[in-house]
């Protein structure tokens, strides 16, 4: 049924999905830019300066999209979910306030110095500005993930007259799922950027660019992906065990386990059907789920049927989880193979370069799938055990929410296409002198940056 609740959920989902794409890139890309800058400062090798000059443009564009879509988020709590702040405002409020006060102003102010101040401040101050921007984005992730994790695994508070009151801020911030979620997201950000760097570098390579800066970035990206993908798999597994302990219904949905018990099979694929409370076309391996969840072939695992009606929609969680894992395995394969192909200064085979171009934004798919698993998996709750999503929603008329939703969707779809198009366009432009310069006042970045001409 189309009602205000469903539309508000779709709208929030659309806003936060669109938003997370950009911070996911800017968090890790900031640190990569700092690395490029430090390498240049240390070695004096102009390749690193060239790499910085190219990637800072992508960074600036990404950052702008992250900022404006983030402002939308800050208003959404009140416009569509007034019950949220009314019930848990005493917890959520300070965490959001600290994000704004300690992170937003820091990154926004030094972004100006970082982007446009290179000639106006000393090299040291400029390097420091890059650090502060990267630090700000990371700090912002810390606060918002602390709050998000608290919504999954709330603790350190007590309820008085239907409102939450904080008892222990340390327990609230470092709640049980927070360290896993934060690390999983940070590594996801670095993996997303690794494949972005690799994809666009491979794209330039395919178009004939043999600049040393491009090769260095490609090698760096694949090395980082090669190391981080296994780390991410281990972190994901630990996060899953944490979910098993604190949100068993979500885990049962991820695994597609309807009937709990001893010696539960691992469902590889199937179509969860809530009517029959089973999976159609199920392919599974006997006892495996019990083994990897409890480290005992006959260990006991709870099924969805053990949680009554307090279970999330199973199919989206089940499939999103498989998409995330699939992307992870693909990343593992691509990074190890690609890095091996580059060994000893060798060049990438064309088919592999094409594959990496296709995987340019693969991190986005993995990140979105992962967030869908965890957020849809928390349903029907907004704050586990404290507040349901239905209780928090606005009482606005359906038509009003529908109109805003359609407006947002139109803008987001347009901007997403524009962003991807411009990212590839900027990449082509570095090596292609025949494309006209866009700026009437020639910016020195576009006239003295012949990356491909080396």
């Amino acid at each position, binding site marked *: 049924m189309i009602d205000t609740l469903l539309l508000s959920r779709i709208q929030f989902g659309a806003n936060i999905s669109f938003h997370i794409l950009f911070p996911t890139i800017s968090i890790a890309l900031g640190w990569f830019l700092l690395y490029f800058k430090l390498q240049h400062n240390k070695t004096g090798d102009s390749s690193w300066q060239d790499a910085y000059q190219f990637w800072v443009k992508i960074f600036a564009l990404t950052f702008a999209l992250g900022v404006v879509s983030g402002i939308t988020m800050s208003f959404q709590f009140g416009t569509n979910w007034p019950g949220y702040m009314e019930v848990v405002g005493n917890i959520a409020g300070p965490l959001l306030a600290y994000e704004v006060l300690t992170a937003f*102003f820091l990154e926004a102010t030094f972004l100006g110095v970082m982007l446009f101040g290179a000639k106006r401040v000393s090299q040291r101050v400029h390097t420091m500005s890059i650090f502060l921007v990267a630090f700000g984005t990371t700090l912002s992730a810390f606060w918002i993930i602390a709050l998000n994790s608290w919504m999954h695994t709330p603790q350190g508070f007590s309820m008085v007259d239907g409102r939450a009151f904080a008892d222990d801020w340390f327990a609230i911030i470092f709640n049980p799922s927070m360290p896993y979620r934060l690390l999983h997201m940070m590594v996801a950000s670095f993996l997303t950027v690794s494949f972005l760097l690799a994809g666009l570098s491979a794209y330039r390579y395919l178009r004939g660019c043999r600049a040393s800066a491009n090769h260095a970035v490609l090698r760096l990206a694949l090395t980082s992906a090669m190391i981080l993908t296994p780390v991410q798999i281990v972190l994901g597994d630990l996060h899953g065990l944490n979910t098993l302990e604190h949100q068993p219904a979500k885990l049962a949905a991820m695994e597609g386990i309807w009937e709990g018990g001893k010696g539960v099979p691992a469902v590889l694929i199937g179509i969860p059907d809530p009517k029959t409370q089973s999976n159609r076309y199920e392919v599974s391996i006997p006892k495996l789920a019990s083994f990897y969840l409890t480290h005992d072939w006959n260990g006991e695992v709870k099924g969805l049927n053990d949680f009554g009606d307090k279970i999330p929609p199973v199919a989206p969680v089940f499939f999103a989880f498989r998409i995330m894992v699939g992307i992870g395995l693909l990343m593992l394969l691509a990074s190890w193979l690609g890095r091996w192909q580059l060994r000893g200064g060798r060049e990438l085979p064309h088919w592999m370069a094409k594959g990496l171009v296709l995987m340019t934004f693969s991190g986005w798919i993995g990140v979105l799938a992962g967030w869908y698993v965890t957020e849809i998996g928390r349903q029907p709750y907004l704050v586990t055990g404290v507040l349901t999503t239905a209780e928090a929603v606005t009482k606005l008329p359906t038509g009003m929410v529908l109109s805003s939703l359609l407006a947002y969707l139109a803008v987001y779809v347009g901007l997403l296409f524009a962003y991807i198009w411009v990212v590839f366009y900027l990449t082509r432009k570095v090596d292609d002198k025949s494309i006209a310069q866009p700026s009437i006042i020639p*910016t020195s970045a576009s006239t003295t940056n012949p990356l491909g001409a080396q």
Partner: protein
Amino acid sequence: MPPDLTAPAAWLPLFFFVAMGIAVLSYVVLDGYDLGVGLLLNRTADHNKDMMIASIGPFWDANETWIVLGVGLLLVAFPLAHGTVLTELYLPVTAMLIGLILRGVSFDFRVKVNTSQKPLWNFLFYLGSLIASVAQGVMIGRLIVGFESGFLGWVFAFLVGICLPAGYALLGSTWLILKTEGELQKQAMGWAKVSLWLTAGGVGLVSIATPYFSPEIMNKWFVMPNILWLSPIPLLTAALFLLVLKSISALQSGASKKEWIPFVAVVAIFWLSFFGIAYSIFPYVIVGKMTLWQAAAATESLYVIFWGAIVVLPTILIYTFYSYRVFWGKARELSYQ
């Protein structure tokens, strides 16, 4: 009003009410000048557009953060009013957010796409600035009338919705007088004079209409002795308008070189107007319905933010000043190098 302001449950909400006011005022003035530059963008030749953008390039992102702080303080300090305020303002808030999105991204896209697409992004920059400023005006109007749903309540809101862009254009053009030179600066002086009259008319209209819509606000202004000690506000505002006009004329004729006077005087006009509105609304968060003390969050939670704010806000001010100092003087072309 709780009589005992020494009790944390009384002064903490007041502190956050004032802090929220400062955040909103900072937003209106800071993002006001760059929204104003956006409103004026299409009134000049292409080669001047890049310079207009360059004058706001290093600042707009941080300027916009003030509104996140403003709504953030509403959200964290007054959670019980936050939902009501934002659901009442649902449509203008949605319009404003879409405007701010278009404005913010066009700023970056316009220099990164190829030349043939640049006019599209210039137009979206203008359109986004226009939508955001009108929507903010409507929001302020709705807030003043306490979200009254009648026809006149909406007429008033739209009246403010027309006046605020004029005020932003005035801020933007005086900012350009300060930050640019030559042909563009001369154009900006012309824009400033036109938007000055529009703004003055708007401020006058809103000042007369506000007490008309709310008897409560009428009682706060037009009774003895309030009317006496409040009278400097309109008088000073009028004097500042005159100062802006005179100082621009003096710049145009070459009699003066003080390019900072118009901008600073316009900022002062915004401060006074803001004080007027704040005085009218106080101590309500939702006019006539909920006071700031009724809407406040738990005292313990407010304390947690209070200590953070006391330490962090001065730090923010220091590095904001630093950033303005780095980009002090006339704007230069934007370059990542």
